[in-house]
């Protein structure tokens, strides 16, 4: 009960801070009941005490070596380079993510360490140089051997598995950042009022809402009217 009371004091947005309904415009939702985040809440994402301790321990522990991270960074950059309109994997700190996730999910660690060694050996055997010393063209020629699973030679299959893992982690690491999400075009995770698929999208897909179905759907201009029914369960409001 105490905790609950104390929470109330945090709901300082009630009335003031929240995005209030503008008339009955259906595109805005009443978020006045959402707790307004305070400076001291920055960085919190709902961890239990045990989870928080685990995060801190992992973040403070040694992951890949500097040498390993240097190669990981080169690979990330080749997998998702920057473009004219969007930053690349390095701008999105993907190597740091990979460093963390291999500590968090240890089943990644050995395949990545071993894969890096495999790549180093392949590089030395092919060009007589470690991977980091190769030119961009040389690096790409090595990647071309292992980046296409259907056509790759059987003798490079360990490299194919390694590169597939690096590509997966780079994609995940990138598209879970602000930069990646913007580039992808995900537009949610914010209060809004869903009122169906935009008309131009419906048209593009040859779809339409049928009348009978729409009659069962919410009239967003009445969303704030308290629900009342007759005895048969017909909504009156």
């Amino acid at each position, binding site marked *: 009960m105490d905790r609950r009371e104390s929470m109330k004091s945090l709901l300082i947005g009630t009335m003031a801070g929240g995005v209030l309904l503008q008339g009955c415009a259906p595109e805005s939702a009443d978020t006045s009941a959402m707790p307004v985040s305070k400076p001291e809440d920055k960085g919190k994402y*709902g961890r239990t005490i045990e989870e928080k301790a685990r995060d801190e321990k*992992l973040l403070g522990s040694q992951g890949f070596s500097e040498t390993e991270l240097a190669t990981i960074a080169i690979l990330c950059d080749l997998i998702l380079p920057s473009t004219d309109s969007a930053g690349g994997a390095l701008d999105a700190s993907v190597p740091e993510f990979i460093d963390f996730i291999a500590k968090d999910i240890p089943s990644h660690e050995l395949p990545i360490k071993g894969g890096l060694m495999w790549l180093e050996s392949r590089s030395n055997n092919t060009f007589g140089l470690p991977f980091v010393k190769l030119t961009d063209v040389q690096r790409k020629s090595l990647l071309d051997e292992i980046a296409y699973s259907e056509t790759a030679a059987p003798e490079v299959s360990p490299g194919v598995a390694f590169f597939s893992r690096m590509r997966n982690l780079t994609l995940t690491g990138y598209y879970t950042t602000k930069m990646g999400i913007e580039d992808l075009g995900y537009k949610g995770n914010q209060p809004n009022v*869903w009122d169906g*698929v935009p008309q131009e999208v419906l048209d593009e897909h040859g779809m339409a809402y049928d009348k009978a179905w729409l009659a069962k759907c*919410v009239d967003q201009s009445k969303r704030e009217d308290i629900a009342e029914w007759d005895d048969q369960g017909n909504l009156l409001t």
Partner: protein
Amino acid sequence: MQIIESREQFDAIIVGSGAGGGMSAKVLADAGLSVAIVEAGPHFDPTNPDQMTQLKWPWESPRRGASTTRSFGDFDAAYGGWEIDGEPYTQGEGSQFDWFRSHMLGGRTNHWGRISLRFGPRDFKRRDQDGLSDNWPIGYEDVAPYYDKVDKLIGVFGSKENIPNEPDGFFLPAPKPRLHELYYIKAARKAGVTVIPSRLSILTKRLNNERGVCFYCRQCSRSCAIKADFSSGTSLIFPAQKSGSVQLFTNCVVKEVTTNAEGKATGVSYINKDDLKEYHLKGRTVVLAASACSSARILLNSKSAQHPNGLGNSNDIVGKYLHDSTGTDRAFLVPEMLNRKTYNEDGVGGLHVYSPWWLDSKKLDFPRGYHIEIWGGLGMPSYGFGFGLAEMNKYVSGVVGGYGDKLRDDARKFYGAMMGVSGRGESIPMKSNYCEIDPEVVDQWGIPVLKFHYQWSDHERNQSKHMHDTFEEIFDKMDAIPLGEKPGADKDYGLHNPGRIIHEVGTTRMGDDLTTSVVNKYQQLHEVPNVFIVDGGPFVSQADKNPTWTILALSWRTSEYIVDQLTKKNI
């Protein structure tokens, strides 16, 4: 170790704070009774900034939401999961039952799918139709008034459909379908599969001034801070606390129900996780709502001279007839949705449309039905996004693999073009599927743990096979490309392990016959009149419906009965 006695005696001690416990607390407290809620986990409030995960971005988690510490990912509200450190469970030979536990205020209601389906008239009397398992001792007409009350108190959206075994209720209006759901509707209709708006306990319209109206972030699994979804804490327990007669005991693990020389319950003993001491709480009645298996475990561990085989278990039925929904899934790619325009289509936390059971089981090679759930759309990326992306090209004659700018194009090309369907069906409750106490293993609190024995039968395998055949028929109607292999007989047709759908019920079944059931039609122990069970344990069979709405309705009904019986001094 000395047991610390409570001075106060409560009218009711409720063990567990999920759907059943929350509802009981609300009804009993509103009736003026003094109530203790004993919850094994911590307090939880989705508005607490230390606990909330709603509207967080994936990058706010260093693992981007991966499921390393929480089974459904970092942002899922349920603490606990398939395995809990220090609290094992064991398996009998050949059994693989997966048990999802969430120890926290509100339990699993904090993250559940909110699919809120009434059982229909036929669901309560299945034995009459197929000769398998047993009828419930009550029928739809007994529960209907309580379903009505639950609809109005908690709120559920849906639509009036007049389908005989899918009773309508007091619905809030449904959200409009998303794009992939429109594709599904079209294809399902062509395949002769019924499709209607889904029924979820999410407020698409204002229900009262205490709870907010859905703002469509698709994150009900994170527990809603404006209380627009049904979670037991925000919708039942916090309102119940307003009476001032509810005391919460969090981080307290109930060991057993204690009894006196007459065999009547006197309260519960519990371990306080914070000081590791054992306490005894006195109550006139004990209401078990710890979840079907946990309540069975408490009964089985409550051995005394009067109840040597555990409480309410002289007939050896406690733990028997454990059953979960069947479940299997398939994903597919809709070529027409490749390279689609993006917009915010989060919608509510879950499906906007679904297919209720549409066939007559008499014409099929399995006895009971299933429903189909639909998922997909332009979701928020989290850990796992992009895995296997480059390989997806094999389905559309693109170049498989690669790197560089091509990958960006692939990410946009496939984003939101995949969707999936899940079959969720009714299994046959069987005495041979059960949990019992493992005599050799205790948890970290020193309490003997459960051992599971569970095997699917051909009833479930044939049903799962039918689900996959139906899925492919529907894909075919929208020219979709199924992903992966269709699971065959060697894989039990893709049936998930029992327990996996997290609808486990039946361990303390209801019945009129004292030799084959544990509780009566008021969910009162046959052998101990002041002990009640209000979780999924008393379910005789579970329909192809998600159990929560029925747990809530039955808990309300039982709680009214408790008030009545206490008033009449019958217990």
